[in-house]
């Protein structure tokens, strides 16, 4: 059965596009057929993060005008992952109704349709939410982001989207260990939605947008793999951002800065 998940947040800049791209890659690596949809129409950058901005032939606007089919607009990323690009033209061409039809069409060919959406308080959110069945709420462990995230959960519910998982991004394990930053559990308790994933702060992601899965010392690749397993239900393990910084060995490692 195919699933349509909107990836959203209360505030912009917390990592929706990054999570959309990397979760899509991780689900595909697990053998799922995935399409990442640029739902943040107008402010497109999913194509850039996935490195295919120059491979877009037809965009959502041309599909809306009937100049291309949904399948023609797909940009292949790898064997199992494709991108459905945003419109580069006039925004109002892709109405919510047309967007819903596009999603329905994509559902026929993919296990996962991930919609990278604008923040819940923005205008274009309506269109992205209309097409979705489930949600992933991305937040950082900071008060303003959590606060608006909480509101967005209510907005999602008003669209009938009640199956919503929480993803906490840019967690600094050392600060959580030192009790200087809200822990993922604390954030989840306040938000009152189930915690699906914990993603650490990572310099490579900051620079390149994509997690370096080959680097075993960086927890980010593993954390995304765990998130993908959580989403597809094969494993319910959460990434442990703290233990490497706790105890004597952790303190010693931090002192050595490794």
């Amino acid at each position, binding site marked *: 059965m195919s699933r349509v998940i909107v990836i959203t947040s209360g505030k912009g800049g917390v990592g929706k596009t990054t999570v959309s791209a990397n979760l899509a890659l991780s689900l595909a690596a697990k053998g799922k057929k995935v399409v990442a949809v640029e739902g943040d129409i107008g402010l497109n950058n999913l194509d850039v993060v996935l490195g295919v901005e120059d491979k877009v032939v037809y965009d959502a606007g041309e599909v809306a005008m009937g100049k291309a089919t949904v399948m023609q607009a797909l940009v292949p990323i790898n064997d199992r992952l494709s991108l459905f690009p945003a419109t580069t033209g006039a925004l109002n061409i892709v109405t919510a109704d047309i967007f819903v039809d596009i999603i329905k069409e994509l559902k026929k060919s993919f296990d996962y349709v991930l919609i990278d959406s604008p923040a819940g308080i923005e205008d274009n959110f309506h269109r992205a939410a209309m097409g979705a069945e489930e949600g992933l709420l991305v937040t950082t462990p900071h*008060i303003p982001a959590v*606060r608006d995230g*909480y*509101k967005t959960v209510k907005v999602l519910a008003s669209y009938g989207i009640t199956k919503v998982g929480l993803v906490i991004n840019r967690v600094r394990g050392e600060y*959580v260990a030192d009790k*200087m*930053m*809200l822990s993922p559990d*604390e954030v989840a308790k*306040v938000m009152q939605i189930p915690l699906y994933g914990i993603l650490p702060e990572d310099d490579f992601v900051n620079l390149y947008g994509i997690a370096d899965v080959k680097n075993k010392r960086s927890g980010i690749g593993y954390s995304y793999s765990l998130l993908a397993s959580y989403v597809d239900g094969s494993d319910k393990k959460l990434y442990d951002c703290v233990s490497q910084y706790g105890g004597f060995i952790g303190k010693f490692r931090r002192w050595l800065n490794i």
Partner: protein
Amino acid sequence: MKTSSDELVRLQKVILGDSLKIPNGVLEVLKSDIKGVLNSYFELKEESLKPEIEIDEEGLYHIKISAICTAVKKVKAL
């Protein structure tokens, strides 16, 4: 230094504050009361009176009232 437990308390307060809606009716009654008071001093412009109530991170209510008047009434002092 900031601690996560302080942060948690602040977070819980803002979320509580966001969900603590002031009943619609209260704002309307407040508006007509304030209008009554201001009307005896100013010629208020129609529909210009706007009371706003917000809750801050400490859980305190901030009440702001703004209005536009076209003239000041002559108030007789005794």
